């Protein structure tokens, strides 16, 4: 299995720099992404909450473990950083499970040869 360490280093650096992604919009007074408001955000814009939207919007978003990349008890920036690290760890774990299941069956000898070739 190839790890390509030189490519993982930038990912780790990006995780460490991630608070910038929170700070920049605040610094320049920009809101969130267009069309991603919670129900009360919609109310502020048009004066009411569409009924179907109201019914469906609370389905999951506020029941997640780390809603909005915030960690209970941590400040916004620290929480964002922890969320990035946790998210990357989860994404990598899930990718390995799915990737293993999807990679083709003829791995036996061929892959061993390739791995030996890498050393």
């Amino acid at each position: 299995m190839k790890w390509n360490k030189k490519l993982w280093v930038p990912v780790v650096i990006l995780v460490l720099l991630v608070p910038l992604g929170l700070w920049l919009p605040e610094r320049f007074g920009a809101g969130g992404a267009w069309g991603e408001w919670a129900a009360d955000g919609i109310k502020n814009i048009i004066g009411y909450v569409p009924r179907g939207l109201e019914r469906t919007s609370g389905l999951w978003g506020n029941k997640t473990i780390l809603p909005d990349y915030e960690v209970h008890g941590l400040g916004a920036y620290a929480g964002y950083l922890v969320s990035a690290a946790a998210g990357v760890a989860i994404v990598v774990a899930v990718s390995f499970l799915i990737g293993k299941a999807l990679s083709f069956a003829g791995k036996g000898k061929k892959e061993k040869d390739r791995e030996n070739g890498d050393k």
Partner: protein
Amino acid sequence: MHIPDGYLGPATYGGLWAATAGLWVVASKRLKKTFKAAEVPLLALGAALSFVIMMFNVPVVGGTSGHATGAVLLAIVLGPWAAFISLSIALAVQALVFGDGGITTLGANCFNMAFAGAFAGYMLYRLVSAGGASRKRLLFSAGCGAYFGINVSALLTAVELGVQTIMYKGADGRPLYNPFPLKVTIPALMAGHLTVFGFVEAAFTVLSLAYILKAHPELVRTRT
């Protein structure tokens, strides 16, 4: 561009869930024939990179903010089908763990960003780079593909949101789901993506690809 729960009505999110699930089946069938076990870390790397780059919100001064997705970069390195799976993993974790993008709308979000964005951008990349594979040409093609791909994703998102006002109206004539019509959603989403986020995506893609070409040139080849 992550559509939250409540913005799309059942027929829209159901249809897009079905389409995306079908595409996942197609992707897994193709990958079982072509995707090597040795490439698993690369799939994970792509998903991780895409996850973290989406957390870098770039402001449009005084307005809204947006971010790159990495879709076309992943398509260039992993091939578009593996990129689709890799990005879907990142989007699913964002929705399930962080509430970024809805559950009902996960099919739509994967369709727009992971499938359409990756494939449209990748096709343009192949088109522009066809016949010449110099480093400069590859990077230029990647930038064009990235700009195009994210804008295709944004346009699809805008159309899906905008048609809700036509598809769903309550007895009082008010919209039931996303309340903004096409003439609002298209300019609102496209303004930011055509002028800023498209270029952010292109810059991110070109810089990353330049780094990969230096560190691991064997990873960048043309494949279908």
